[in-house]
């Protein structure tokens, strides 16, 4: 089950960056995000999977589709990529893969470890950790993220204003 999801995630993300039509890239991004949410559900983090579906797959992809429809007609294809940029991109991607793969495989000895036991995350405990001011609790980043979202809203309205 895990292999199906991981393989589909890799295939969809590869198709998302190599297709020439942009609207198909947005659709493949949507499928990749759904596969990511399935991975979160399989790891017993249900809240995170739900947040991923609601925010990423439901919010950001819709925003992408709006931006695509505003800035280009969907019938156009992008032009064919020049070979110089493709070689450079492939070299950078393969270099990243080799370095991170080596760093990962040389430290971890088991490849298919079973999941360790974890009791399910209690929503009340999650809420109190998010809003608490104790030792390992996250009230300060929570407020900082809300200020960031406010700044982002104001910035977005100012940048995309009608002249």
């Amino acid at each position: 089950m895990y292999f199906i999801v991981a393989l589909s995630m890799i295939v969809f993300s590869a198709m998302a960056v190599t297709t020439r039509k942009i609207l198909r890239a947005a659709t493949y991004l949507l499928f990749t995000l759904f596969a990511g949410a399935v991975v979160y559900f399989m790891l017993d983090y249900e809240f995170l999977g739900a947040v991923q579906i609601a925010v990423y797959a439901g919010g950001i992809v819709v925003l992408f589709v709006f931006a695509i429809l505003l800035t280009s007609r969907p019938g156009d294809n992008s032009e064919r990529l020049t070979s110089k940029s493709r070689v450079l991109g492939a070299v950078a991607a393969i270099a990243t893969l080799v370095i991170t793969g080596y760093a990962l495989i040389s430290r971890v000895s088991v490849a298919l470890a079973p999941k360790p036991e974890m009791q399910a995350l209690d929503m009340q405990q999650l809420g109190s950790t998010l809003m608490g001011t104790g030792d390992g609790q996250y009230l300060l980043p929570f407020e900082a993220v809300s200020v960031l979202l406010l700044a982002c809203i104001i910035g977005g309205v100012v940048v995309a204003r009608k002249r």
Partner: protein
Amino acid sequence: MFCCGVYGFITRKNMIAMLVSLELMLNAVDINFVVFNRFLYPEQTEGMFFTLFAIAIAAAETALAIAIIINIFRAVRNIDVRSLNEMKF
């Protein structure tokens, strides 16, 4: 998935396609955090909270990037990164 994002970011000319590959990179890093948290420290939830905040920040950053792209489209009428080579004055 991160390598697909890197490849797409360097190769594509369309700005929205570059944003797509940026989203792929961010999502790959999020999954990495969650998996490490689950397998190495199953009692603590720090990886999950980091991923939660990373999702929120990525959403804010994508919205603002799309606003900037729409503004550029109004000024130049196309969204190629290779054709933006003039400053304002």
